[in-house]
């Protein structure tokens, strides 16, 4: 399986990582090698084997619907780079709410 430079550029964009042309070349090679390595799994005969959805053999780990005290607004904002009153402040978002 061949990873293209365009795919790496796209993934970098989606991850908000800026890359120079040199870095793109290097990452295309390195990521490609990792994918090729993982590709070896495809050589196995997996007929009738359920895909692993989780590596820990556990299920239904849940808590009851009980309110616990929150950490407090001062603690919450302690490491924020910027604040406005009790809000976190971030650089102005131009896009009017992507609403995913």
């Amino acid at each position, binding site marked *: 399986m061949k990873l293209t430079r365009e795919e790496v550029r*796209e993934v970098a964009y*989606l991850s908000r990582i800026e890359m120079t042309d040199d870095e793109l070349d290097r990452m295309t090679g390195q990521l490609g090698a990792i994918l090729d390595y993982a590709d070896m799994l495809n050589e196995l005969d997996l007929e009738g084997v359920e895909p692993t959805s989780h590596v820990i053999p556990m299920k239904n780990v849940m808590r009851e619907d009980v309110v616990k005290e*929150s950490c407090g607004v001062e603690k919450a904002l302690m490491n924020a780079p910027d604040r406005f009153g009790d*809000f*976190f*402040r*971030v650089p102005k978002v131009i896009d*009017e709410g992507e609403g995913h």
Partner: protein
Amino acid sequence: MKYEPVIGIEVHAQLKTESKLFCGCSTGFAAAPNHHVCPVCLGLPGTLPVLNRKAIEYVVRTCIALECEVSPASRFARKNYYYPDLPKAYQISQYELPIGRNGKLTVRAGGKEKTIRIHRIHLEEDAGKLVHDASGGSCVDYNRTGIPLMEIVTEADVRSSEEAVAYLTSLRSILQYIGVCGANMEKGEMRCEPNISVRPVGAEEFGTKTEMKNLNSFRAVRLGVDFEIERQIDAIENGERIVQETMRWDEATQTTQTMRSKERAHDYRYFPDPDLVPVEVSASVLELIRAKAPELPEPRRVRFISQYGLPEYDAEVLTGSKAMADFFERAAAIHNDPKAVSNWIMTELMGCLNESGKTIDECAVTAEDLTALLELMGKGVISARMGKDVFKDMFATGRPPAEIIKDKGLEQLNDETAISDAVEKVIADNPGPAADFRAGKKQAAGFLVGQVMRQTGGKANPKIVGRIIEEKLLSE
């Protein structure tokens, strides 16, 4: 050419849990910014989400009500995107294995029954809230982050704004009945995003669809969907191409506007969330939840007709909201005349609610007070006419009827001697009409009764007044 709209509807319903989906922070509504947050919902490193059992129960309950297949195993996935309302830079949602699939809801629209298929129901966490104009930058409040949302997605079965509203009305009613969601659209407890396309009548292939946001009421849904259908038809007729994009309904201008183009489709890079283990809803748990399932609107409507002997129309109106139906049943349990209770709810109570813009939950009149008023009228303490005024007072002040009647001195005058005195005076003062009545003009009685009512400040029992007038004039 004639066109046919093709509509699918996505609803996000906020589940009525006390705590958030993956942490113990409160879901309470009016807190100051960032007061309901903790390291888990802030997405701080080293924290682990733990699933709220109630949220799963609520989704399963909804699946049962909407006749979905409940997946024996489901799991959570990360939906990755960057936006400041999402502190982890991913939303925990569900992807390949939602909790519910292949359900249906039958609604009545335009006098016809219509079945809308449900594609899937899944559970996810809400994002935070951005406030754009408070300062130089953008301000973020994460109180809402992590509040459980249930996403209900229909197949593209809806064919008009009327059907869309019928579906949403019915869905809201069901969610309220089963107690999983407040489902108030204005409060954002139920958000609806239709996707809309049009195609020539008879065509098999779907047209290009647009998605619509910011529809905060049923009225907005009707107007917005109709507007978008017209816009698309006009565009096609003008030879334009419909672009797949998200439109925003603008309440002020009553138009839709483009929010962002979806041509470069978002790549959310979903993958299973390794922090959360799979959820298994076993057959026995499913049965347990099914056994606890509350009565749904449709069976309740049918029961109202058979149990209380109500007309179809009354049963439909009363069961339209769970709170209203509960109010009726509380009142009907006390006052043994269900039709009278229904009449008073449907005319006086609903009239007052409409006028004040209040919901039944905010109504100050209790079922007990309403039945007390009906009893007082039944006993002749006040007339039905007075009853309506007393009810308005009860609605405005929340005071019990007996107190209002006493304070305002509204008791009906049933004392025959007092009424007889008033009648004699009226006859003496109005010889003309009295003579007319004696001469057989029955209409003259109306005038005389009116005069007696005036004389007694509207309090005399009109039945007794009429009888006494007749006795006096015809026995002479």
